[in-house]
């Protein structure tokens, strides 16, 4: 999966010369052009979109070519998504969906991002719409986009300490309480009139046994109600 050839130009030249790409049924000049840029064509998935994997270091030049090359001219960035594969190396993947209005083509480009240095070049100078998409990917998965002018959280509070769409994050939150909002100093302009003691904020209905879905309650702030 991660065996991208070290010298993409030499290995991809025969592929460009031979139009019969092994993954797509009709010979596709698009795949040839992208392979010449250093992208690795991946097998087709169910949605029949051409999928490419690009090395992180090669991504800025590939993105520029995809946007500016008149033979490619992918004018529109549909989506930027961050994906977490906890068992893969590299762990994260940033997935771009690009649409060429000129050629009426949609492709998907995947860029692997290692966990140790979760950083990838921003494409905001090529597609301005990447602004909020990259902010969302940063917020949810924690991939940083180098060159983004305003990389803040977009969905979670600014002082939220975690990236909730990582697979090791419990869906019910680690500390779903007010404490971190207090720590950010955003909220507490005056004291609460009702200050519930811990454990009373949820009624005894919450149970910690026999969870059918297999995930735990995940709220360590709440003490276990007495279950006889």
């Amino acid at each position, binding site marked *: 999966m991660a065996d991208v050839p070290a010298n993409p130009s030499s290995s991809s030249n025969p592929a460009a010369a031979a139009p019969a790409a092994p993954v797509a049924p009709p010979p596709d000049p698009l795949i040839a052009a992208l392979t010449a840029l250093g992208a690795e064509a991946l097998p087709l998935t169910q949605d029949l979109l051409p999928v490419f994997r690009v090395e992180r270091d090669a991504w800025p030049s590939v993105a520029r070519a995809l946007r500016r090359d008149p033979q490619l001219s992918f004018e529109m960035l549909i989506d930027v998504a961050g994906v977490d594969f906890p068992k893969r190396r590299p762990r994260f993947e940033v997935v771009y969906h690009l649409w060429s209005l000129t050629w009426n083509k949609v492709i998907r480009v995947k860029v692997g991002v290692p966990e140790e240095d979760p950083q990838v070049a921003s494409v905001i100078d090529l597609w301005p719409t990447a602004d909020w998409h990259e902010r969302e990917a940063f917020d949810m998965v924690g991939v940083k986009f180098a060159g983004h002018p305003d990389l803040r959280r977009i*969905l*979670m*509070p600014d002082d*939220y300490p*975690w990236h*909730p769409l990582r697979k090791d*994050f*419990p*869906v*019910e*939150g*680690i500390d*779903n*309480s*007010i404490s971190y*909002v207090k720590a950010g100093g*955003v*909220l*507490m*302009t*005056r004291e*609460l*009139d*009702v200050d*519930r003691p811990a454990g009373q*904020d*949820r009624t005894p209905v919450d149970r910690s046994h026999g969870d059918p879905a297999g995930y735990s309650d995940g709220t360590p702030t709440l003490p276990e109600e007495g279950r006889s």
Partner: protein
Amino acid sequence: MGVEDKFPEVVTSRLTDLVGWARKNSLWPMPLGLSCCAIEMMATVGPRFDLSRFGAEVFRFSPRQSDVMIVAGTLTWKMASVARRIYDQMPDPKWVIAMGVCASSGGLYRNYAVVPGVDRILPVDVYTMGCPPRPDTLIRAVMELQKKIDELAIDGRRPREPVFVQ
């Protein structure tokens, strides 16, 4: 003895009672419509249910002019600071109605993004069940709030002292 004995056409009352009566019959809600409950809240002020029968139809979109905040919908942590700021901008005395299960307890959304009940950040006076609650339920919540206001003293916080009966 008293004024009422001498002038039978005059009714005397305590100032507290008068202020409470005025307050509870002229509630000006601040609609914090966050999701689908807001649609039912709009229906409540419509002609079919007509919240103005209870004097609470003047929805003010400025917190400075309102005294009851209707939190209608799912409150996320991102929105929590905004909601709190709006509440802080409302003049005292002020009350909060948590409309629907999302506002009351987080409801269906037991996840990292949703506040599990707006009473984490606001002092809620009346909780309302339903997903979303029918307009009838919101009207009942307003009536319950009126009942509560009637029990409060003139500062809108302490309970009202009972009338001394000989």
